[in-house]
């Protein structure tokens, strides 16, 4: 099965935040943050992704070659081709689906929060019920898995009035993104670029940007965390080998000394 991807054309985004509302509505997420709104010197709201806000428009204030402007970024899970969250999740609640979508099964989550700490984009958020007992549930954008697997578009894509969002076969999205970048370059957006084609195994969320990724607050060169690779590929197998060796060594040593003692008694 070929991979799916979301193509987000930030040159078209008007920051209407219809995607935020559609996401909450379809996924049945609370809007309590909106009733806690405070003026923080920005139009963006809510202030950050949260367990109840899986996507959000970030308002980046950018001083570019043509003076000040806003750069809008639709934040959310990148659905990495090489997802560290899936590798570190001890429960299997996070899974990489055959179509490349990183799904999340809330019932399986035990709230350990490893995914929130190993994600190179700091996307998953932990809804902590009790910090002392550690009772919690993780959450993140799942590309509306229920809709997508029934041949519907994700809620945010469906609702976007500016047609800034597109969703479908990943290769097709890359081709569309590249064509759009080309068109933007020709129109004089000299910094236009496509973000995510080859990052962390190829992102499932591709951005057409009109400024460098850093200006959007995106990491220019995100990496699969080395600590996750070290932990999963070296420490864990080493643990199994060490325990196995210790147990076998002890059993062996027991028989050796028992034999030697009996030999001595015979002599």
């Amino acid at each position, binding site marked *: 099965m070929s991979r799916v991807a979301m193509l987000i054309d930030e040159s078209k985004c008007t920051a209407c935040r219809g995607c935020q509302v559609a996401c909450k509505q379809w996924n049945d997420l609370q809007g309590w943050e909106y009733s806690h709104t405070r003026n923080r010197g920005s139009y963006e709201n809510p202030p950050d992704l949260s367990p109840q806000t899986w996507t959000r428009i970030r308002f980046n204030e950018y001083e570019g070659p043509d003076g000040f402007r806003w750069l809008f970024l639709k934040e959310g899970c990148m659905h990495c081709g090489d997802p560290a969250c899936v590798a570190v999740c*001890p*429960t*299997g*609640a996070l899974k990489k689906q055959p179509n490349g979508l990183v799904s999340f099964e809330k*019932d*399986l*989550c*035990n*709230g*350990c*929060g*490893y995914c*929130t*700490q*190993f994600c190179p984009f*700091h996307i998953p958020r*932990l809804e902590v019920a009790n*910090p*002392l*007992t*550690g*009772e919690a549930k993780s959450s993140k954008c799942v590309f509306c898995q229920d809709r997508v697997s029934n041949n519907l578009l994700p809620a945010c894509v469906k609702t976007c009035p500016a047609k800034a969002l597109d969703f479908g076969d990943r290769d097709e999205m890359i081709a569309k993104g590249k064509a759009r970048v080309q068109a933007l370059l020709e129109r004089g957006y000299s910094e236009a670029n496509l973000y995510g084609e080859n990052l962390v195994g190829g992102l499932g969320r591709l951005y057409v940007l009109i400024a460098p990724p850093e200006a959007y607050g995106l990491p220019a060169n995100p990496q699969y*965390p080395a*600590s*996750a690779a*070290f*932990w999963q590929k070296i*420490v*864990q197998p*080493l*643990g*199994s080998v*060490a*325990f196995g060796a*210790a*147990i076998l060594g*002890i059993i062996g*040593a*027991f028989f*050796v*000394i*028992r034999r*030697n*003692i009996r030999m*001595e008694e015979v002599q």
Partner: protein
Amino acid sequence: MTVQLKGKREAITIRWIPKYTFLERAGHWLHTATFVPLALTGMILFFPFLQPLAQGPAGQFFRLVHRIAAVLFGLIPIVYFIIQPRRLLMNIREFLFDKEDIGWLKNAFGYYVLGRHGIMPPQGRFNTGEKMNGLIMMAAWVLLGLSGLIMWFAKGVLPSGLFQAMVIIHDVMMIISVCMLLVHLYLAIAHPLMWAGLVSMRFGVTSAEYAAEHHAKWYYGPKRAMELYEAQKRQAAGTEH
């Protein structure tokens, strides 16, 4: 105390002398009672094959057990320090290595695995193996405790790189200390020649004869123990030639 051993006709007399205080034994067993559940519940998040136990409410329950056990595990040495600070410091000093420990390490394989009756350098109240166990457990208390506290309370507060490092430290220290525990367990309950340790840890006493042989520096004092050791070595060299 006179004991009739199985299969032996004549009774042997054992003179018991005190070895561990009540608090030392209580500390040891409370440490065991918290460390074992900690290791078992911790492994659930470590080994992929234990995934079914990590899922959903079960995983949540084991994480809670881990935290309760962790608090008790952390408190044991602190409470011990409050009750008997000097005794705790003395215990820590007893675990530190000296030059006889090198000789012990060289001969340990032949003695404990092959069952050869080599002459071992005189040992204090704790022999080199027990010292290693003690040192690793002290390191485990510090490192597992610190990394655990950071993971517990600083998740999302401090940079994620720090959390990641703590996961690695916690896991590596767990592997080392659980391997040490397995060896310790074997020597205590299954090793055919090491019956005395478990008796001492249960009842606080040891046989004087055993102490003289295995813990000479503690039984005779360091000076006399070294004299006896040198004499033993000379005798052994004499019989060989």
